[in-house]
């Protein structure tokens, strides 16, 4: 029996070593990536190996493949944009480009890229999630000034979705504190979108209390006592509000609110614009380390740049994201009511500072929920 044990262990170790070595040689671990992300990553890493060799030439005519790692609600936007960009690029440069998409929670997507998902570009919900990639050495510093408008080609804002006819008469942030109003918003600790919601309310409270921080905290704390359920993500909150019929008002991104109304019935919900809100700037960046390795820098940069073109801007507007190009802004004026918007920089500074102050452990959000700490 003794000999058998030893033999068994040896076989095990030998097998283990072989698999271990094989895995290291491949060097494309994709821990934690969603199933769709995995599928697209597999496809994406296969093709550009060939074009990497030819990357010295300005533009290779070989077909090229990009992976755009994005967050949840941009699926429809990028489906149409990718088609438009492929057509444009092929016409201009005679090169076929296919773009794979990966969607999920913004923070989770960022972690997937850090863990080895080979994204050529990232288009996420928060600058903070791209900062994390910069910190991991995947993106060069200064990414946020690489493209116009803080590298946010389109913007959005935070609005209210209420039940048809607005039975509780909700018009502004202060109405959310009325006794009989229940508010649905996700947990800012797990959802990027929820952080914009939180900051929008905070900014409003600052403006109405002479920038008194303590009063703003009181306002937001009060607001969260009206929240019966904190879903882990924005789509979860939409489901809670729309399908479960819970709550009187959903705090949501403007584009999500429009999607809900269009897909689930104009006869069921109304969109309410508060007197002021935050300008949500979802940023984009090229993943420098990946494009240099794959030799896809030129296409990847053009891909993001074209988001600012008239065609790119129109596609964004069609998908209820606010365009930043003046001519397109003008064209879609009726679609995006003008309200007072403040930016993150106006009121809070950088994402790093904001995250640390409000959402990290021991931050303001925790204080709201942990009495006496």
């Amino acid at each position, binding site marked *: 029996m003794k000999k058998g044990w030893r033999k068994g262990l040896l076989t095990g170790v030998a*097998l283990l070593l072989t698999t271990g070595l094989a895995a290291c040689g491949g060097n494309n671990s994709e821990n934690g990536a969603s199933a769709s992300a995995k599928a697209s990553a597999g496809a994406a890493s296969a093709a550009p190996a060939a074009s990497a060799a030819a990357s010295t030439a300005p533009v290779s005519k070989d077909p090229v493949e990009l992976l755009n790692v994005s967050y949840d609600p941009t699926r429809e936007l990028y489906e149409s944009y990718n088609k438009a960009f492929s057509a444009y690029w092929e016409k201009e440069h005679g090169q076929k480009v296919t773009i794979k998409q990966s969607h999920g929670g913004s923070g989770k997507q960022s972690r997937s890229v850090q863990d080895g998902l080979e994204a050529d570009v990232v288009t996420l919900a928060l600058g903070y999630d791209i900062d994390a990639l910069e910190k991991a050495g995947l993106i060069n510093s200064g990414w946020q000034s690489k493209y116009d408008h803080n590298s946010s080609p389109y913007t959005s804002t935070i609005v209210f979705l209420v039940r048809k006819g607005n039975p509780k008469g909700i018009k502004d942030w202060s109405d959310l504190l009325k006794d009989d109003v229940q508010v649905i918003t996700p947990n800012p600790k797990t959802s990027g979108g929820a952080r914009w919601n939180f900051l929008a309310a905070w900014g409003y409270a600052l403006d109405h209390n002479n920038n008194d921080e303590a009063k703003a905290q009181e306002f937001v704390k009060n607001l969260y006592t009206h929240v019966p359920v904190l879903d882990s993500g924005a789509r979860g909150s939409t489901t809670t509000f729309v399908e479960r019929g*819970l709550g009187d008002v959903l705090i949501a991104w403007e584009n999500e609110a429009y999607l809900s109304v269009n897909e689930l019935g104009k006869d069921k919900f109304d969109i309410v614009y508060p007197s002021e809100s935050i300008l949500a700037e979802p940023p984009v960046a090229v993943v420098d380390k990946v494009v240099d390795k794959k030799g896809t820098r030129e296409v990847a940069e053009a891909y993001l740049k074209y988001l600012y073109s008239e065609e790119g801007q129109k596609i964004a507007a069609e998908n209820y994201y606010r365009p930043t190009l003046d001519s397109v802004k003008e064209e879609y004026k009726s679609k995006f009511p003008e309200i007072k918007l403040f930016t993150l920089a106006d009121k809070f500074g950088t994402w790093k500072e904001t995250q640390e102050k409000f959402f990290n452990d021991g931050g303001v959000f925790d204080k709201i929920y942990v009495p006496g700490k």
Partner: protein
Amino acid sequence: MNVTAKTVRRGTLPGFGLTMGYTVLYLSLVVLIPLAALLFNSTGLTLSKLWDVATDPRVLASYRVSLSTAAAAALADGVLGLLLAWVLARYRFPGKRIFDALIDLPFALPTAVAGVSLTALYSANGWIGSRLEPLGLKIAYTPLGITLALMFIGIPFVVRTVQPVLEDMERDTEEAAATLGAGRWRIFRKVILPELIPPLLTGFALAFARGIGEYGSVVFISGNMPMRTEIAPLLIMSKLEQYDYAGATAVAMLLLLISFLMILVINLLQRWAHNRSR
């Protein structure tokens, strides 16, 4: 002569070397290496950080929620699972095979689907929830809802550990007890139950351990309210969301430690029960 000696030394079954090798490989790839990676990830984790995390009121509250709901669900599964196993092992009725197969379904169903469906049923405007709410019984978005989700995913563990023991049980002792004048309840208590305690404990331990780590089915029905219905696995996600790998690992390690100790205790208890019933 020589040959027989060799065969004896090698054991009765052939292929030990290969199967043992496979076992080591499998265990390493699937269990040991991921667990080692967890430890490795905690290199940024100092003892003071671990202490901070362990004593944070929100983390403590989440442990309380996770442990109490998992224990409650495992207990309920123990009772209900015994009943289910009893019916399946002792009675014949039409559709029994289908019924039997249904028991395993919670294993196959993606937990998120279970969570979404349970929430849809038990929320205030759901099919069942709308009937219970007027009676003052709120299920979705309360610890009760979490318990319910954990019961759903835990029930197969109990049924599948108890059922085979029940099926293999010799009827002789029961019949002997009956001829000696024991009533049915007495037979159950004195003859059947002692045999069932070890498998029941195993089922309980499995359902309990599964419940502590469960994430998918719970996030939808729990409402995730800090200090009240926030489970420990959600806090791990929330720490990952702020790229606090060390903090996430700390919560995970503590959770793992608690589960391990509990399973250890239950296993000892089970051994004791097993020896006593002999």
